[in-house]
Structures are given as C-alpha cells and as structure tokens.
C-alpha cells in the first residue's frame, strides 16, 4: 500500500482521467440516449426504426469492439479526433481521449435509451393523450408531460447504466490513457511485493466512487418520489 500513498500525485492524475471520462461520457450519453428514446417512441417511422437499429447494433456489440473502432479502425479510414488538443491543468485532453470518450458515450447511449424507454412505458398512455388533446405538438408532449414523469420512473435503471459506465472507463486504461486501471497495472508491475495492497486500494477507490453515484441517484429518487 505504501507505493499508493507515496505516489498520491500520480493517483490524483489517474483519478482525474477516470472522472473526466465518466463525467463527459455521462453527459453525452444521457443527451444522446434521451434523443434516441424520443425517436423510438416518436411518430416518425424512419426515426423510430433508425433509433431501434442503433440500439440493436450498439447494444449487441462488446464495449471493447466499439472503443477499438474509434481508437484503431477510425484513424485508418481518416476518422480521427486530432482537432482535440486541450490542456486542463495537468490533464491532457487529446485525440486518444476524445476517441475513447466518443466510444464510451455511443455505447452507453444505447443503454440510456432503453432505460429511459422503460420509464416512458411506465407513464400512463392517458397522459400523452391528454397532452395531445390540449394541442401540444410531439416535442411539447415529450418535454412537458411524458419525459418529466419518465425520467423520475427511470432513475434506478439509469443509475445502474451510469455506474456501469464508471466501471467501463477502466477499459480505456489499455487503450492509451493512464486512468486508474492503467495506474494500478504500473504500480503492480513496479512493486510486486505490494500487489494485494494495491488491488485493495484501487478496488476500494472504485467502491467509493460508485457509492457516490448511488448516493446521488438515491437522493434524486427520494426528491422526485412525489411526482
């Protein structure tokens, strides 16, 4: 465990990358997933099918394959993110980071869409009919009436999806960014005598991070209980 405590600066940087992955991909996936869910329940059949195809394609593909597509196959066919080059303090947001964030977001959006759709299905049909009856267009029906109720109903599955995203960021450790998982591997390589301690330290850190996400989800659930 000493090696972890002696290298808190490296740990901090790795934690920062993990959190950046999580936060950016969470925002992007929630946005994209909500649009997809709206498309799936919307009146336009082309959009409905496109969203269904997206979910089928992405949800049935392993995460690693999606990430490799953007990280390895993309640059070969000219799809790269070399326009991304930011320095946030000691964190460097580069083309590799961008490719991985896009991969994570695209993958997670499919699950967000389905979690949200389960919430939409939980809203009684009469709500949407009533909203249409007072003359709201589809956008209004969704944003004013259906989605506020659907989001409340889908907090628990949505929290699961986002927790999975947080843990999925570890896949990026083998693909070009030194986040927590990559840092753990370099620690265990450097000091095999402390392997067990290092594992426990990193596992505990992930438990804490997930507990924080669960706590936030729990609060939201309680606050929104009375719709």
């Amino acid at each position, binding site marked *: 465990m000493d090696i972890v405590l002696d290298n808190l600066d490296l740990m901090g940087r790795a934690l920062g990358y993990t959190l950046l992955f999580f936060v950016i991909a969470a925002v992007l996936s929630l946005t994209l997933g909500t649009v997809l869910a709206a498309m799936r329940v919307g009146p336009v059949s082309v959009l409905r099918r496109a969203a269904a195809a997206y979910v089928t394609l992405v949800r049935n593909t392993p995460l690693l394959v999606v990430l490799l*597509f953007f990280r390895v196959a993309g640059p070969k066919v000219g799809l790269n993110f070399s326009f991304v080059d930011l320095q946030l303090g000691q964190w460097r947001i580069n083309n590799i980071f961008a490719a991985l964030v896009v991969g994570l977001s695209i993958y997670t959006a499919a699950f967000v869409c389905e979690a949200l759709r389960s919430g939409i299905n939980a809203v009684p049909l009469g709500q949407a009919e009533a909203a249409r009856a007072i003359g709201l267009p589809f956008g209004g029906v969704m944003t004013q009436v259906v989605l506020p109720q659907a989001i409340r109903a889908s907090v628990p599955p949505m929290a699961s999806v986002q927790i999975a995203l947080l843990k999925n960021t570890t896949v990026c450790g*083998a693909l070009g960014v030194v986040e927590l998982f990559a840092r753990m591997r370099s620690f265990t390589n450097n000091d095999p005598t402390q392997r067990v301690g290092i594992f426990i330290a990193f596992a505990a850190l992930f438990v804490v991070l997930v507990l924080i996400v669960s706590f936030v989800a729990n609060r939201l659930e309680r606050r929104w209980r009375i719709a």
Partner: protein
Amino acid sequence: MRLKRTKAAAAAVGLGLALSACGGSAGEPETGAEGAEAPEWEVVESPEFEAGTAMAELAEAGEVTIGVKFDQPGLGFKGATDDMPSGFDVELAKMLAGQLGIAAEDITFEETISDNREPYLQQGRVDLVLATYSITDERRQIVGQTGPYLITGQQVLVPADSDVEGIEDLQGEEVCAAAGSTSLENVEAEGAVPAPADNYAACVDDVLNGTVPAMSTDGAILLGYAAEQEGELKVVGDEFSEERIGVGYSKERPEMCEFINDALQASFDDGTWAEAYEYTLGGEGVEVPDPPALDDCQA
C-alpha cells in the same frame, strides 16, 4: 435510415480493417536476416547435480517449464501460427535446459506476461522465467533473480519524416508503450505523456497513422520494428534508461542461482551467447555488445 445504413457499412468496413490490422502488424521482424545460423545448444548427457537440489529434480524429470514473453519480437515472440516461441530469451532458455540435460523439445514454454511472472514462480507453475525480466530490488524480495544476461536501454521510435531527435523533444507529447510496463514509467519520468497500449504492435500502428508522435521501449525491439517498416519509421535518440534483464527462479530454490550463473558465464565465454544475440537481435547496423557482468549469488 440511409445515413444509418452507411454508418453501419462504414462500421463493418472499419472493424474488418481493425481485425486484419491485428493479424498483419503483429508479424515478427525477420530474425537472423544476416544469414546468422540458429545456435545449437549442447544437451549435456546425464548431468551431475547434488542430490536433493532443484537441478537434480529437473534433470531427473527430464522436462522443464519456462516462462517467456510471447509478444516481444526478437526477445520472446510467438506468432499465431508458430509452434515454438522464438527470440533471444527463448534461445537462452534452451541453453539453460541443455545444461540440465533437457532437449529443446522437452521444454514447455508458458506465456508469462509482466503481471504474472512472480505468482507463476511462487506457485511453481514455471521453473524459470526468461521474459524480459528486469532485475529490481522489489522483485528480489519475493523471487530469485540472477544475471543480467542482457542490458538494454530505451530509445524512441518515430515516423521517418519526424523532427524528433530524442525523448527530450517529446515533453508533454504522447509516447506509446505497453500498459503496465517499465518502459511506460520511464517515458513518464522523462516528462512525456504516457499512452498505454495493449502491446507494442498496437503502438507501431498508432505511430504509423499519426495518433501518437512516438513510441518507446528497448532499442533492440524498436530496431526490429523499424526494419519491418523500412523507410517509414526510424529509431532516434540516446538510450535514456538501463534495464538489466535477468533470469527469474523461485526463492525456495536458491541453489538455482549458481547453476544459472555458471551456465550463463560459460555461454559468454564460448561465444554462444554472441551467436544467439546475432541470430535473434542482430541485423544490419546492429553490433553484438560485450556480455554483461553477472551479479554474485547471495548465499
């Protein structure tokens, strides 16, 4: 819908490319290109060891399990279609087995990656480890290590048209190396941004398509890749680290140390070490270095 279809098609094509790239670029650089002959290792007939030692046990059993890397061209590499791994580590493993009276075909080569070398030795899954195993004080606390049989230094591999002249020019730039490797640590210590990859072949791809400006690991390995991609890649800069590659054995078998040292020293002296180097790591513009000085065995 049409857009989605094109996207799906593009995805399919892209994945196909990615897969074929995995197959293609993992190829090993030519070894023994200079016409160097495979060294022939003497297999000692009925070697004599003191009863009860690990060497006596292994010689008696007539077989030995040795941990090597499968993904480091020139050192320890096994392609998808190869029956046997090849490389400098592997040749020395055959030499050591020969000294135990065990022929090359009776060696079981087990793949050891960076993370499982110590556990494998401790659990007895392998008898020896020759897997680009740098000697460090931390490792010596839990396993036996002796040697070094090779001293390497880290250099930088860049595209042929790059202006980079060494690791000094890469401050704050991404440099690719295998995840969890010492190479990656050294890159970070030099002030570059470490970009971990699954293996070195993936790093070469990233350098070739411009995702990262450079990659870094042992100079010997980089020369292999530069030779493979003639005219596209070049090795630059001075060596900025020193790795002492040694042999790992179980701490419960301290008697192995003397045996390994004697065998290594014999191969240094009779020139077979140099032959093995020439055969695996040699090539145009590569000079065979002098053998390193061995560490003493702690009693």
